[in-house]
Protein backbone atom coordinates (compact mmCIF):
# COMPACT_ATOMS: atom_id res chain seq x y z
CA UNK A 1 0.00 0.00 0.00
CA UNK A 2 2.79 2.36 0.98
CA UNK A 3 4.30 2.03 -2.46
CA UNK A 4 1.04 3.17 -4.03
CA UNK A 5 0.67 6.03 -1.57
CA UNK A 6 4.08 7.32 -2.57
CA UNK A 7 3.19 7.00 -6.20
CA UNK A 8 -0.03 8.92 -5.60
CA UNK A 9 1.72 11.72 -3.76
CA UNK A 10 4.33 11.85 -6.50
CA UNK A 11 1.63 12.19 -9.15
CA UNK A 12 -0.10 14.86 -7.10
CA UNK A 13 3.08 16.90 -6.83
CA UNK A 14 3.74 16.49 -10.54
CA UNK A 15 0.28 17.69 -11.47
CA UNK A 16 0.44 20.65 -9.11
CA UNK A 17 3.78 21.59 -10.64
CA UNK A 18 2.19 21.06 -14.03
CA UNK A 19 -0.62 23.52 -13.27
CA UNK A 20 1.86 25.98 -11.88
CA UNK A 21 4.09 25.89 -14.93
CA UNK A 22 1.05 25.97 -17.19
CA UNK A 23 -0.26 29.07 -15.51
CA UNK A 24 3.12 30.69 -15.67
CA UNK A 25 3.97 30.69 -19.38
CA UNK A 26 1.11 28.92 -21.14
CA UNK A 27 3.39 26.50 -22.88
CA UNK A 28 2.89 23.45 -20.65
CA UNK A 29 -0.19 21.30 -20.60
CA UNK A 30 -2.52 21.32 -17.63
CA UNK A 31 -4.28 17.97 -17.23
CA UNK A 32 -7.16 19.66 -15.48
CA UNK A 33 -7.70 22.32 -18.15
CA UNK A 34 -7.42 19.69 -20.88
CA UNK A 35 -9.92 17.44 -19.12
CA UNK A 36 -12.35 20.33 -18.72
CA UNK A 37 -12.14 21.30 -22.40
CA UNK A 38 -12.63 17.66 -23.40
CA UNK A 39 -15.70 17.30 -21.15
CA UNK A 40 -17.03 20.55 -22.60
CA UNK A 41 -16.46 19.20 -26.13
CA UNK A 42 -18.44 16.08 -25.23
CA UNK A 43 -21.26 18.27 -23.92
CA UNK A 44 -21.26 20.27 -27.15
CA UNK A 45 -21.39 16.97 -29.06
CA UNK A 46 -24.61 16.19 -27.19
CA UNK A 47 -26.09 19.35 -28.70
CA UNK A 48 -26.27 17.46 -31.99
CA UNK A 49 -28.84 15.20 -30.40
CA UNK A 50 -30.56 18.33 -29.12
CA UNK A 51 -30.75 19.85 -32.58
CA UNK A 52 -31.88 16.55 -34.09
CA UNK A 53 -34.77 16.26 -31.61
CA UNK A 54 -35.82 19.93 -31.81
CA UNK A 55 -35.92 19.80 -35.60
CA UNK A 56 -37.70 16.42 -35.70
CA UNK A 57 -40.29 17.59 -33.21
CA UNK A 58 -40.99 20.85 -35.03
CA UNK A 59 -41.52 19.16 -38.42
CA UNK A 60 -43.95 16.57 -39.77
CA UNK A 61 -43.48 12.87 -39.12
CA UNK A 62 -43.08 12.13 -42.83
CA UNK A 63 -39.72 13.98 -42.78
CA UNK A 64 -38.28 12.65 -39.51
CA UNK A 65 -35.88 10.11 -40.97
CA UNK A 66 -34.52 12.81 -43.27
CA UNK A 67 -33.96 15.31 -40.44
CA UNK A 68 -32.23 12.70 -38.30
CA UNK A 69 -29.98 11.69 -41.20
CA UNK A 70 -29.05 15.33 -41.88
CA UNK A 71 -28.04 15.81 -38.25
CA UNK A 72 -25.99 12.59 -38.15
CA UNK A 73 -24.20 13.64 -41.33
CA UNK A 74 -23.58 17.23 -40.19
CA UNK A 75 -21.53 16.24 -37.14
CA UNK A 76 -19.80 13.43 -39.05
CA UNK A 77 -18.84 15.68 -41.96
CA UNK A 78 -17.75 18.39 -39.50
CA UNK A 79 -15.34 15.94 -37.83
CA UNK A 80 -13.72 15.13 -41.18
CA UNK A 81 -13.92 18.40 -43.10
CA UNK A 82 -12.78 20.57 -40.19
CA UNK A 83 -9.78 18.28 -39.82
CA UNK A 84 -8.89 18.52 -43.51
CA UNK A 85 -9.13 22.28 -43.99
CA UNK A 86 -11.56 24.12 -41.67
CA UNK A 87 -9.39 24.18 -38.56
CA UNK A 88 -6.38 25.49 -40.44
CA UNK A 89 -8.43 28.20 -42.18
CA UNK A 90 -9.73 29.29 -38.78
CA UNK A 91 -6.59 29.13 -36.67
CA UNK A 92 -3.65 29.07 -39.10
CA UNK A 93 -1.31 32.05 -39.36
CA UNK A 94 -3.41 35.03 -40.43
CA UNK A 95 -3.25 36.08 -44.06
CA UNK A 96 -3.92 39.84 -43.90
CA UNK A 97 -6.45 39.30 -41.09
CA UNK A 98 -8.91 37.74 -43.53
CA UNK A 99 -8.30 34.02 -43.25
CA UNK A 100 -5.89 31.55 -41.69
CA UNK A 101 -3.19 29.73 -43.63
CA UNK A 102 -5.12 26.76 -45.08
CA UNK A 103 -2.09 24.46 -45.11
CA UNK A 104 -0.51 25.13 -41.71
CA UNK A 105 -2.68 22.66 -39.76
CA UNK A 106 -4.25 20.86 -42.71
CA UNK A 107 -4.91 17.18 -41.84
CA UNK A 108 -3.90 18.13 -38.28
CA UNK A 109 -0.27 18.52 -39.27
CA UNK A 110 1.66 19.73 -36.25
CA UNK A 111 -1.29 19.29 -33.90
CA UNK A 112 -0.18 17.07 -31.02
CA UNK A 113 -1.83 15.58 -27.97
CA UNK A 114 1.12 16.37 -25.72
CA UNK A 115 1.68 19.99 -26.69
CA UNK A 116 -0.31 22.95 -25.40
CA UNK A 117 -2.29 25.13 -27.81
CA UNK A 118 -0.62 28.59 -27.87
CA UNK A 119 -2.03 30.93 -25.26
CA UNK A 120 -3.65 28.09 -23.31
CA UNK A 121 -2.56 25.15 -21.20
CA UNK A 122 -4.88 22.81 -23.11
CA UNK A 123 -3.69 19.93 -25.28
CA UNK A 124 -3.73 20.92 -28.94
CA UNK A 125 -5.89 17.95 -29.87
CA UNK A 126 -8.37 18.80 -27.11
CA UNK A 127 -8.56 22.34 -28.50
CA UNK A 128 -9.15 20.88 -31.97
CA UNK A 129 -12.02 18.59 -30.97
CA UNK A 130 -13.67 21.42 -29.00
CA UNK A 131 -13.47 23.78 -32.00
CA UNK A 132 -14.60 21.05 -34.38
CA UNK A 133 -17.79 20.56 -32.35
CA UNK A 134 -18.49 24.30 -32.72
CA UNK A 135 -18.12 24.14 -36.49
CA UNK A 136 -20.59 21.26 -36.54
CA UNK A 137 -23.03 23.27 -34.44
CA UNK A 138 -22.99 26.24 -36.81
CA UNK A 139 -23.70 23.95 -39.76
CA UNK A 140 -26.50 22.02 -38.07
CA UNK A 141 -28.45 25.23 -37.37
CA UNK A 142 -29.14 25.47 -41.11
CA UNK A 143 -30.71 22.04 -41.29
CA UNK A 144 -33.90 23.09 -39.48
CA UNK A 145 -34.62 26.14 -41.64
CA UNK A 146 -34.35 24.21 -44.91
CA UNK A 147 -36.23 21.19 -43.54
CA UNK A 148 -39.02 19.31 -45.32
CA UNK A 149 -38.07 20.39 -48.84
CA UNK A 150 -34.31 20.35 -49.45
CA UNK A 151 -32.73 17.47 -51.36
CA UNK A 152 -30.54 15.39 -49.10
CA UNK A 153 -27.55 15.57 -51.47
CA UNK A 154 -27.97 19.34 -51.76
CA UNK A 155 -27.88 19.70 -47.99
CA UNK A 156 -24.77 17.50 -47.75
CA UNK A 157 -22.95 19.67 -50.29
CA UNK A 158 -23.90 22.84 -48.46
CA UNK A 159 -22.83 21.40 -45.10
CA UNK A 160 -19.38 20.63 -46.52
CA UNK A 161 -19.02 24.19 -47.86
CA UNK A 162 -20.11 25.93 -44.66
CA UNK A 163 -17.83 23.77 -42.49
CA UNK A 164 -14.87 24.01 -44.88
CA UNK A 165 -15.02 27.68 -45.86
CA UNK A 166 -17.84 29.89 -44.56
CA UNK A 167 -17.62 29.16 -40.83
CA UNK A 168 -13.80 29.22 -40.75
CA UNK A 169 -13.68 32.73 -42.26
CA UNK A 170 -15.82 34.23 -39.49
CA UNK A 171 -14.07 32.03 -36.93
CA UNK A 172 -10.77 33.47 -38.08
CA UNK A 173 -12.03 37.07 -38.10
CA UNK A 174 -13.10 36.87 -34.46
CA UNK A 175 -11.22 33.98 -32.80
CA UNK A 176 -8.25 33.27 -35.05
CA UNK A 177 -6.48 36.64 -34.93
CA UNK A 178 -8.37 38.20 -37.86
CA UNK A 179 -9.37 41.82 -38.39
CA UNK A 180 -12.39 41.76 -36.05
CA UNK A 181 -10.32 40.46 -33.15
CA UNK A 182 -7.93 43.35 -33.85
CA UNK A 183 -10.93 45.68 -33.36
CA UNK A 184 -11.39 44.21 -29.88
CA UNK A 185 -14.63 42.37 -30.60
CA UNK A 186 -15.81 40.14 -27.73
CA UNK A 187 -17.62 37.00 -28.80
CA UNK A 188 -16.75 34.64 -26.01
CA UNK A 189 -18.46 31.45 -27.14
CA UNK A 190 -19.91 32.41 -30.49
CA UNK A 191 -23.19 34.38 -30.57
CA UNK A 192 -21.81 35.58 -33.90
CA UNK A 193 -19.20 32.98 -34.85
CA UNK A 194 -21.60 30.08 -34.40
CA UNK A 195 -25.18 31.32 -34.14
CA UNK A 196 -25.29 34.38 -36.40
CA UNK A 197 -23.30 32.37 -38.97
CA UNK A 198 -25.81 29.49 -38.77
CA UNK A 199 -28.80 31.85 -38.74
CA UNK A 200 -27.62 33.92 -41.72
CA UNK A 201 -26.95 30.77 -43.76
CA UNK A 202 -30.37 29.48 -42.69
CA UNK A 203 -32.00 32.64 -44.06
CA UNK A 204 -30.15 32.25 -47.36
CA UNK A 205 -31.23 28.61 -47.63
CA UNK A 206 -34.87 29.30 -46.82
CA UNK A 207 -34.93 32.13 -49.40
CA UNK A 208 -33.37 30.11 -52.21
CA UNK A 209 -35.65 27.12 -51.52
CA UNK A 210 -38.87 29.05 -51.08
CA UNK A 211 -41.68 28.05 -48.72
CA UNK A 212 -43.03 24.53 -48.23
CA UNK A 213 -46.04 23.59 -50.34
CA UNK A 214 -49.17 24.88 -48.64
CA UNK A 215 -47.40 27.31 -46.30
CA UNK A 216 -48.64 30.41 -48.10
CA UNK A 217 -51.45 28.89 -50.18
CA UNK A 218 -54.42 31.10 -51.10
CA UNK A 219 -52.68 34.25 -49.85
CA UNK A 220 -52.93 33.08 -46.25
CA UNK A 221 -50.17 32.24 -43.78
CA UNK A 222 -50.91 28.64 -42.85
CA UNK A 223 -49.59 26.89 -39.77
CA UNK A 224 -47.79 23.63 -40.52
CA UNK A 225 -47.59 22.03 -37.08
CA UNK A 226 -44.65 19.93 -35.99
CA UNK A 227 -45.44 16.37 -35.04
CA UNK A 228 -44.02 16.09 -31.53
CA UNK A 229 -43.75 18.75 -28.86
CA UNK A 230 -42.23 16.17 -26.46
CA UNK A 231 -39.38 15.59 -28.94
CA UNK A 232 -38.89 19.34 -29.37
CA UNK A 233 -38.79 19.82 -25.59
CA UNK A 234 -36.38 16.90 -25.17
CA UNK A 235 -34.09 18.42 -27.78
CA UNK A 236 -34.41 21.94 -26.39
CA UNK A 237 -33.52 20.88 -22.86
CA UNK A 238 -30.59 18.78 -24.16
CA UNK A 239 -29.36 21.93 -25.91
CA UNK A 240 -29.66 23.88 -22.65
CA UNK A 241 -27.57 21.17 -20.94
CA UNK A 242 -25.05 21.12 -23.80
CA UNK A 243 -24.65 24.89 -23.43
CA UNK A 244 -22.91 24.24 -20.08
CA UNK A 245 -20.10 22.89 -22.23
CA UNK A 246 -20.50 25.44 -25.00
CA UNK A 247 -20.03 28.55 -22.82
CA UNK A 248 -18.02 27.44 -19.74
CA UNK A 249 -15.82 25.28 -22.00
CA UNK A 250 -14.91 28.30 -24.10
CA UNK A 251 -12.97 29.59 -21.10
CA UNK A 252 -10.39 26.94 -22.11
CA UNK A 253 -9.21 26.76 -18.49
CA UNK A 254 -10.52 25.75 -15.10
CA UNK A 255 -10.95 28.58 -12.64
CA UNK A 256 -13.57 30.36 -10.58
CA UNK A 257 -14.63 32.36 -13.66
CA UNK A 258 -16.37 29.31 -15.15
CA UNK A 259 -18.83 29.53 -12.26
CA UNK A 260 -19.83 33.02 -13.44
CA UNK A 261 -20.12 31.72 -17.00
CA UNK A 262 -22.34 28.83 -15.89
CA UNK A 263 -24.55 31.21 -13.91
CA UNK A 264 -24.93 33.81 -16.69
CA UNK A 265 -25.68 31.02 -19.20
CA UNK A 266 -28.32 29.43 -17.00
CA UNK A 267 -29.85 32.76 -15.97
CA UNK A 268 -30.26 33.99 -19.54
CA UNK A 269 -31.92 30.72 -20.58
CA UNK A 270 -34.33 30.87 -17.65
CA UNK A 271 -35.12 34.55 -18.27
CA UNK A 272 -35.77 33.78 -21.94
CA UNK A 273 -38.15 30.93 -21.08
CA UNK A 274 -40.14 32.93 -18.50
CA UNK A 275 -40.33 36.05 -20.69
CA UNK A 276 -41.47 34.15 -23.75
CA UNK A 277 -44.07 32.29 -21.73
CA UNK A 278 -45.44 35.53 -20.26
CA UNK A 279 -45.57 37.37 -23.58
CA UNK A 280 -47.31 34.53 -25.41
CA UNK A 281 -49.69 34.12 -22.48
CA UNK A 282 -50.60 37.81 -22.55
CA UNK A 283 -50.99 37.93 -26.32
CA UNK A 284 -52.90 34.75 -27.01
CA UNK A 285 -54.36 33.80 -23.64
CA UNK A 286 -52.33 30.60 -23.38
CA UNK A 287 -48.68 29.95 -22.50
CA UNK A 288 -47.19 28.65 -25.76
CA UNK A 289 -44.92 25.64 -25.15
CA UNK A 290 -43.39 25.48 -28.63
CA UNK A 291 -42.48 29.18 -28.54
CA UNK A 292 -41.16 28.87 -24.97
CA UNK A 293 -38.70 26.21 -26.17
CA UNK A 294 -37.49 28.77 -28.72
CA UNK A 295 -37.54 31.35 -25.87
CA UNK A 296 -34.91 29.68 -23.72
CA UNK A 297 -32.86 28.81 -26.80
CA UNK A 298 -33.00 32.51 -27.71
CA UNK A 299 -31.79 33.42 -24.22
CA UNK A 300 -28.91 30.94 -24.54
CA UNK A 301 -27.90 32.24 -27.96
CA UNK A 302 -28.11 35.80 -26.64
CA UNK A 303 -25.81 35.24 -23.66
CA UNK A 304 -23.21 33.26 -25.58
CA UNK A 305 -21.13 36.29 -26.62
CA UNK A 306 -21.10 38.04 -23.27
CA UNK A 307 -21.29 35.09 -20.91
CA UNK A 308 -17.91 35.87 -19.31
CA UNK A 309 -18.14 39.65 -19.59
CA UNK A 310 -21.49 40.51 -17.97
CA UNK A 311 -23.04 40.18 -14.53
CA UNK A 312 -25.75 37.60 -13.76
CA UNK A 313 -28.33 40.41 -13.61
CA UNK A 314 -27.30 41.71 -17.04
CA UNK A 315 -27.54 38.10 -18.25
CA UNK A 316 -31.16 38.02 -17.09
CA UNK A 317 -31.84 41.24 -19.03
CA UNK A 318 -30.13 39.88 -22.15
CA UNK A 319 -32.21 36.70 -21.87
CA UNK A 320 -35.45 38.66 -21.37
CA UNK A 321 -34.85 40.79 -24.44
CA UNK A 322 -34.00 37.68 -26.46
CA UNK A 323 -37.21 36.03 -25.21
CA UNK A 324 -39.29 38.93 -26.55
CA UNK A 325 -37.23 39.37 -29.70
CA UNK A 326 -37.66 35.76 -30.76
CA UNK A 327 -41.47 35.97 -30.70
CA UNK A 328 -41.70 39.05 -32.88
CA UNK A 329 -38.87 37.93 -35.14
CA UNK A 330 -40.58 34.59 -35.82
CA UNK A 331 -43.78 36.47 -36.69
CA UNK A 332 -41.92 38.98 -38.83
CA UNK A 333 -40.17 36.34 -40.95
CA UNK A 334 -43.21 34.05 -41.06
CA UNK A 335 -46.02 36.53 -41.78
CA UNK A 336 -44.46 39.68 -43.18
CA UNK A 337 -41.35 38.60 -45.10
CA UNK A 338 -42.99 35.21 -45.81
CA UNK A 339 -39.76 33.29 -45.32
CA UNK A 340 -40.69 29.74 -44.34
CA UNK A 341 -38.45 28.61 -41.46
CA UNK A 342 -40.04 25.45 -39.98
CA UNK A 343 -38.13 25.56 -36.68
CA UNK A 344 -37.47 29.29 -36.22
CA UNK A 345 -33.69 28.96 -36.69
CA UNK A 346 -33.32 32.36 -38.38
CA UNK A 347 -34.88 34.10 -35.38
CA UNK A 348 -33.38 32.01 -32.57
CA UNK A 349 -29.83 31.85 -33.92
CA UNK A 350 -29.57 34.74 -36.39
CA UNK A 351 -31.53 37.54 -34.75
CA UNK A 352 -30.74 36.61 -31.14
CA UNK A 353 -27.10 35.92 -32.08
CA UNK A 354 -26.90 39.47 -33.41
CA UNK A 355 -28.62 40.80 -30.28
CA UNK A 356 -26.25 38.89 -27.99
CA UNK A 357 -23.20 40.23 -29.76
CA UNK A 358 -24.43 43.83 -29.65
CA UNK A 359 -25.53 43.40 -26.02
CA UNK A 360 -21.90 42.88 -25.00
CA UNK A 361 -21.25 46.47 -26.11
CA UNK A 362 -23.99 47.60 -23.69
CA UNK A 363 -23.55 45.33 -20.69
CA UNK A 364 -19.86 44.36 -20.58
CA UNK A 365 -18.60 45.29 -17.10
CA UNK A 366 -15.30 46.19 -18.75
CA UNK A 367 -15.98 48.47 -21.72
CA UNK A 368 -19.77 48.37 -22.00
CA UNK A 369 -21.71 51.56 -22.75
CA UNK A 370 -23.95 51.21 -19.67
CA UNK A 371 -20.90 50.74 -17.44
CA UNK A 372 -19.28 53.94 -18.61
CA UNK A 373 -17.03 52.27 -21.14
CA UNK A 374 -18.09 54.52 -24.00
CA UNK A 375 -19.41 53.50 -27.40
CA UNK A 376 -16.19 51.99 -28.73
CA UNK A 377 -16.99 48.38 -27.85
CA UNK A 378 -20.61 48.77 -28.94
CA UNK A 379 -19.36 50.00 -32.31
CA UNK A 380 -16.90 47.12 -32.68
CA UNK A 381 -19.60 44.60 -31.76
CA UNK A 382 -21.99 46.12 -34.32
CA UNK A 383 -19.33 45.99 -37.01
CA UNK A 384 -18.78 42.31 -36.21
CA UNK A 385 -22.51 41.58 -36.56
CA UNK A 386 -22.92 43.47 -39.82
CA UNK A 387 -19.76 42.14 -41.46
CA UNK A 388 -20.42 38.54 -40.44
CA UNK A 389 -24.09 38.56 -41.42
CA UNK A 390 -23.36 40.10 -44.83
CA UNK A 391 -20.44 37.80 -45.61
CA UNK A 392 -22.25 34.62 -44.54
CA UNK A 393 -25.55 35.53 -46.19
CA UNK A 394 -23.83 36.36 -49.47
CA UNK A 395 -21.60 33.28 -49.60
CA UNK A 396 -24.36 30.94 -48.39
CA UNK A 397 -26.84 32.39 -50.89
CA UNK A 398 -24.34 31.92 -53.71
CA UNK A 399 -23.61 28.36 -52.57
CA UNK A 400 -27.29 27.39 -52.40
CA UNK A 401 -27.89 29.00 -55.81
CA UNK A 402 -24.94 27.16 -57.33
CA UNK A 403 -26.19 23.81 -55.95
CA UNK A 404 -29.66 24.65 -57.26
CA UNK A 405 -28.34 25.35 -60.76
CA UNK A 406 -26.06 22.33 -60.80
CA UNK A 407 -28.26 19.55 -59.43
CA UNK A 408 -31.46 21.16 -58.16
CA UNK A 409 -31.84 22.08 -54.50
CA UNK A 410 -35.45 21.14 -53.92
CA UNK A 411 -37.21 17.78 -54.04
CA UNK A 412 -40.08 17.28 -56.51
CA UNK A 413 -43.60 18.27 -55.56
CA UNK A 414 -44.58 14.60 -55.31
CA UNK A 415 -41.63 13.85 -53.02
CA UNK A 416 -42.41 16.82 -50.82
CA UNK A 417 -46.09 15.96 -50.50
CA UNK A 418 -45.56 12.27 -49.80
CA UNK A 419 -42.58 12.92 -47.52
CA UNK A 420 -38.80 12.97 -47.76
CA UNK A 421 -38.44 9.86 -45.62
CA UNK A 422 -39.81 7.33 -48.08
CA UNK A 423 -38.54 9.16 -51.15
CA UNK A 424 -35.01 10.07 -50.04
CA UNK A 425 -34.26 7.25 -47.62
CA UNK A 426 -36.68 4.44 -48.46
CA UNK A 427 -38.08 4.18 -44.96
CA UNK A 428 -40.52 5.88 -42.64
CA UNK A 429 -40.04 6.94 -39.04
CA UNK A 430 -42.96 5.16 -37.42
CA UNK A 431 -43.85 2.13 -39.61
CA UNK A 432 -45.99 0.26 -37.10
CA UNK A 433 -46.88 3.02 -34.70
CA UNK A 434 -50.64 2.53 -35.07
CA UNK A 435 -51.22 -0.51 -37.27
CA UNK A 436 -48.44 -2.89 -38.33
CA UNK A 437 -47.60 -2.36 -41.98
Amino acid at each position, binding site marked *: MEKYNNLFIGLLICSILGFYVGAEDGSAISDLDTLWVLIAAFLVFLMNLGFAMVETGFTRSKNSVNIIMKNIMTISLAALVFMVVGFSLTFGASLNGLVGDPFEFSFLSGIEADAAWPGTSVSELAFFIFQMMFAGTAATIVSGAVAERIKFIGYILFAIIIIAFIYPVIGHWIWGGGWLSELGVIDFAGSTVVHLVGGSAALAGALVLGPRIGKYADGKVNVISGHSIPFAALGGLILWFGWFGFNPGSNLAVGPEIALIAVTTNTAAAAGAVTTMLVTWLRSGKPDTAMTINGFLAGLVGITAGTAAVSPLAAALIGMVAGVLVIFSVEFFDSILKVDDPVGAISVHGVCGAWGTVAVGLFAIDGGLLYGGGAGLLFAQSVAVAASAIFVFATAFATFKAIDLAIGLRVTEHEE*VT*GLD*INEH*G*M*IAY*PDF*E*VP*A
Partner: protein
Amino acid sequence: MKLIIAYVRTESLDAIKAELDERKVHRMSVTRGKGCGVQKGYLESYRGASKVINLLSNLRIEIAVNDDFVDTTVDGIIKATRTDEIGDGKIFIIPLQDCIRIRTGERGPDAIGGESKYASGSSADD
Protein backbone atom coordinates in the same frame (compact mmCIF):
# COMPACT_ATOMS: atom_id res chain seq x y z
CA MET B 1 -79.61 9.36 -46.94
CA LYS B 2 -76.30 7.81 -47.87
CA LEU B 3 -73.07 7.02 -46.06
CA ILE B 4 -70.08 7.79 -48.24
CA ILE B 5 -66.89 5.97 -47.29
CA ALA B 6 -63.76 6.98 -49.16
CA TYR B 7 -60.31 5.42 -48.87
CA VAL B 8 -57.83 8.02 -50.11
CA ARG B 9 -54.15 8.98 -50.06
CA THR B 10 -53.10 10.45 -46.71
CA GLU B 11 -51.56 13.48 -48.36
CA SER B 12 -54.81 14.48 -50.07
CA LEU B 13 -56.71 15.31 -46.87
CA ASP B 14 -56.15 19.06 -46.99
CA ALA B 15 -57.28 19.25 -50.62
CA ILE B 16 -60.40 17.19 -49.87
CA LYS B 17 -61.32 19.32 -46.87
CA ALA B 18 -60.97 22.50 -48.92
CA GLU B 19 -62.92 21.11 -51.88
CA LEU B 20 -65.79 19.79 -49.75
CA ASP B 21 -65.92 23.03 -47.81
CA GLU B 22 -66.56 24.88 -51.07
CA ARG B 23 -69.34 22.43 -51.85
CA LYS B 24 -70.96 23.15 -48.47
CA VAL B 25 -70.18 19.72 -47.08
CA HIS B 26 -68.86 20.75 -43.70
CA ARG B 27 -68.78 17.41 -41.86
CA MET B 28 -66.73 14.30 -41.99
CA SER B 29 -65.00 11.73 -39.82
CA VAL B 30 -61.47 10.77 -40.70
CA THR B 31 -59.49 7.80 -39.41
CA ARG B 32 -56.02 6.57 -40.26
CA GLY B 33 -55.92 3.24 -42.02
CA LYS B 34 -53.63 0.72 -43.60
CA GLY B 35 -54.63 -1.05 -46.75
CA CYS B 36 -53.63 -2.35 -50.11
CA GLY B 37 -55.07 -2.52 -53.56
CA VAL B 38 -53.67 -3.26 -56.97
CA GLN B 39 -50.45 -1.35 -56.22
CA LYS B 40 -49.37 -4.19 -53.87
CA GLY B 41 -47.46 -2.01 -51.47
CA TYR B 42 -43.93 -0.74 -51.85
CA LEU B 43 -40.33 -1.70 -51.14
CA GLU B 44 -38.74 -0.31 -48.01
CA SER B 45 -35.08 -0.69 -47.13
CA TYR B 46 -34.30 -1.20 -43.47
CA ARG B 47 -30.66 -1.26 -42.32
CA GLY B 48 -29.55 -2.50 -45.70
CA ALA B 49 -32.18 -5.18 -46.17
CA SER B 50 -35.21 -4.85 -48.42
CA LYS B 51 -38.62 -5.34 -46.93
CA VAL B 52 -41.85 -5.53 -48.86
CA ILE B 53 -44.51 -3.40 -47.24
CA ASN B 54 -47.92 -4.76 -48.21
CA LEU B 55 -50.13 -2.35 -46.38
CA LEU B 56 -49.91 1.32 -47.16
CA SER B 57 -51.11 4.14 -44.97
CA ASN B 58 -54.37 5.60 -46.13
CA LEU B 59 -57.24 7.62 -44.76
CA ARG B 60 -60.83 6.48 -44.33
CA ILE B 61 -63.22 9.38 -44.68
CA GLU B 62 -66.87 8.85 -43.70
CA ILE B 63 -69.49 11.40 -44.61
CA ALA B 64 -73.23 11.01 -44.08
CA VAL B 65 -75.17 13.09 -46.63
CA ASN B 66 -78.69 13.64 -47.83
CA ASP B 67 -79.44 12.28 -51.29
CA ASP B 68 -79.05 15.63 -53.09
CA PHE B 69 -75.47 15.94 -51.77
CA VAL B 70 -74.19 12.54 -52.87
CA ASP B 71 -72.96 13.58 -56.30
CA THR B 72 -71.27 16.79 -55.28
CA THR B 73 -69.50 15.06 -52.39
CA VAL B 74 -68.24 12.22 -54.60
CA ASP B 75 -67.18 14.67 -57.33
CA GLY B 76 -65.38 16.81 -54.79
CA ILE B 77 -63.41 13.90 -53.34
CA ILE B 78 -62.41 12.73 -56.80
CA LYS B 79 -61.43 16.20 -57.93
CA ALA B 80 -59.27 16.71 -54.86
CA THR B 81 -57.48 13.39 -54.70
CA ARG B 82 -57.29 11.97 -58.20
CA THR B 83 -53.79 11.68 -59.66
CA ASP B 84 -54.58 9.04 -62.34
CA GLU B 85 -51.95 6.81 -60.75
CA ILE B 86 -52.52 3.45 -59.11
CA GLY B 87 -53.33 3.99 -55.45
CA ASP B 88 -55.81 6.84 -55.76
CA GLY B 89 -58.28 4.83 -53.65
CA LYS B 90 -61.96 3.93 -53.72
CA ILE B 91 -65.29 5.40 -52.73
CA PHE B 92 -68.20 3.33 -51.41
CA ILE B 93 -71.77 4.58 -51.11
CA ILE B 94 -74.06 2.80 -48.67
CA PRO B 95 -77.77 3.44 -48.07
CA LEU B 96 -78.30 4.83 -44.61
CA GLN B 97 -81.26 3.47 -42.69
CA ASP B 98 -81.43 6.28 -40.19
CA CYS B 99 -79.45 9.03 -38.55
CA ILE B 100 -79.89 10.41 -35.05
CA ARG B 101 -78.32 13.57 -33.70
CA ILE B 102 -77.57 12.66 -30.10
CA ARG B 103 -77.78 16.20 -28.74
CA THR B 104 -81.33 16.95 -29.94
CA GLY B 105 -82.78 13.55 -30.69
CA GLU B 106 -83.57 14.68 -34.29
CA ARG B 107 -83.83 11.81 -36.77
CA GLY B 108 -83.40 11.38 -40.51
CA PRO B 109 -82.38 14.09 -42.99
CA ASP B 110 -82.66 16.83 -40.34
CA ALA B 111 -80.13 15.04 -38.18
CA ILE B 112 -77.67 14.87 -41.07
CA GLY B 113 -77.77 18.66 -41.39
CA GLY B 114 -76.78 20.99 -44.20
CA GLU B 115 -78.95 22.88 -46.65
CA SER B 116 -80.58 19.83 -48.15
CA LYS B 117 -84.02 20.06 -49.74
CA TYR B 118 -84.86 16.91 -47.77
CA ALA B 119 -84.26 18.58 -44.44
CA SER B 120 -87.11 20.48 -42.85
CA GLY B 121 -85.02 23.65 -43.02
CA SER B 122 -85.41 24.70 -39.43
CA SER B 123 -82.35 22.76 -38.45
CA ALA B 124 -79.12 24.68 -38.54
CA ASP B 125 -76.12 23.00 -40.05
CA ASP B 126 -74.41 20.70 -37.60
